[in-house]
């Protein structure tokens, strides 16, 4: 301890250095952990509710019935960039129900009434069918039953609605009950990075 540096100062420098190194290592591990963390995700190309070509089959609701999280950690999500904003949306309405006095299907499709239908812009008073509509899913009501996903799938719709794992709800079970039950192996594990990549390339996880 020479050249004017006291023992106390030297220990302070050392402590700050160690703290900096510790923070760096911690940050490194945090980033590494986040990057390498395994999460559950849903492959839309496998899920029978959204898989193209799977037409005339029953809706699968195993994401609702099997998930250990109350009301499930899976939600339906509408990709507005693909939505046709139809006057009669086959995900909103039960399009095989009887027509009511206004010429619309008399029944909604969602058993939890989780989708809202709002006209975009002003109504055309001379032609009510000639309007666009916005369909928004209330995730506090949705339980991921998949009915709207099946209803929206091509060719009936445009396939804008899909199921997605909500990672703020998912508790990351080692043995996911949905994955074990899914007959199409649509529930798979992936790293956070892969999940983000899938989000960017396939529009959802």
């Amino acid at each position: 301890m020479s050249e004017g540096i006291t023992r106390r100062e030297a220990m302070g420098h050392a402590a700050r250095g160690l703290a900096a190194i510790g923070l760096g290592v911690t940050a490194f591990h945090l980033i590494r952990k986040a990057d390498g963390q395994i999460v559950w995700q849903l492959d839309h190309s496998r899920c029978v509710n959204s898989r193209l070509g799977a037409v005339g089959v029953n809706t699968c609701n195993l994401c609702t019935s099997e998930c250990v999280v109350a009301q499930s950690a899976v939600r339906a999500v509408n990709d507005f960039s693909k939505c046709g904003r139809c006057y009669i949306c086959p995900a909103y309405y039960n399009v095989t129900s009887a027509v009511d006095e206004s010429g619309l299907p008399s029944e909604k499709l969602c058993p939890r009434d989780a989708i809202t239908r709002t006209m975009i812009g002003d109504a055309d008073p001379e032609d009510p069918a000639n309007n666009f509509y916005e369909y928004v899913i209330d995730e506090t009501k949705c339980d991921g039953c998949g009915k709207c996903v099946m209803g929206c799938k091509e060719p009936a719709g445009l396939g804008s609605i899909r199921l997605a794992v909500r990672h703020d709800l998912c508790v990351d079970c080692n043995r996911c009950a949905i994955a074990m039950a899914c007959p199409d192996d649509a529930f798979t594990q992936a790293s956070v990075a892969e999940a983000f990549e899938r989000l960017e390339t396939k529009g959802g996880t």
Partner: protein
Amino acid sequence: MKYRLIRTISGRGQEPDQFTETLRGIAVDSDGRVFAVGDSAVRVFQADGRLLHTWSTSSPGYCIAIASNGHVYVGLAGQIEIYEADGTPITAWRDEQHLGLVTAIGFANTSVLAADANARCIRRLGPNGKLLNTIGDDNRRSGFLIPNGVIDFAVDRTGTIHAANPGCHRVERFAIDGTRLGHFGRFDGQDPSGFSGCCNPTNVAVDDRGRIFVTEKAGPRAKVYDSDGALLSVVADSQFELACKNMDLAVDSKGQVYVADTVKLQILVFAPQAEPAAAGNTAAPSEGDESR
């Protein structure tokens, strides 16, 4: 009136008379030859289904029509290509602004009518391809509502345009100057006289008697209406793959209906079946009757 399936033409595969990925448009000429466009090729079949010849288009074709002089018009993205009936190229009309995605072509007098699905309207062109006027864009949504991505129309003998507006569940009529002449159709998911689902009908054809033929998707079916919009018959439904959509159709001079199955890439030909005398509507389907 009932219809029965009498023939299938082409299909999915690698053979010369087959399509590999798409079958988007069909037309029948006065001799009963069937012109089909799919992938990036036109295939011409004899009435019995045998391949006559085939030729390539510059890019994937979306529709096909036969003019009264026998010239073959093919709609593509950004242009219309015109050929002799044997496939010899005549010319191409390129106009990305007004022919963004040509999904239907028809003829009225000296005009050529082309549906531009990108702009959700119908263009009326002169005999040299010059734009004369636009049809169907004069409403508050600036055009047809086509979540299915295509506009299809047909022109009857009087020059009236019958265009599918699937988002509104109806067939709309126009004069070639764009004047609206009326429409028929309504949503109904139970009554076959209505149009089901989010967006039907998708495709339209008319015959010499002014009857209007349409196809629908989800579930796929073909139907025929009289000129006032009253349902005459369901031509076919169970014969199509459930995932079919935008099934183009054509009618020949015998009243036979040609429908494109867009999954099997096959043309199904349905012939009207004479009703047994005094049978009425309660008659049981005859043996071998494959339609409703």
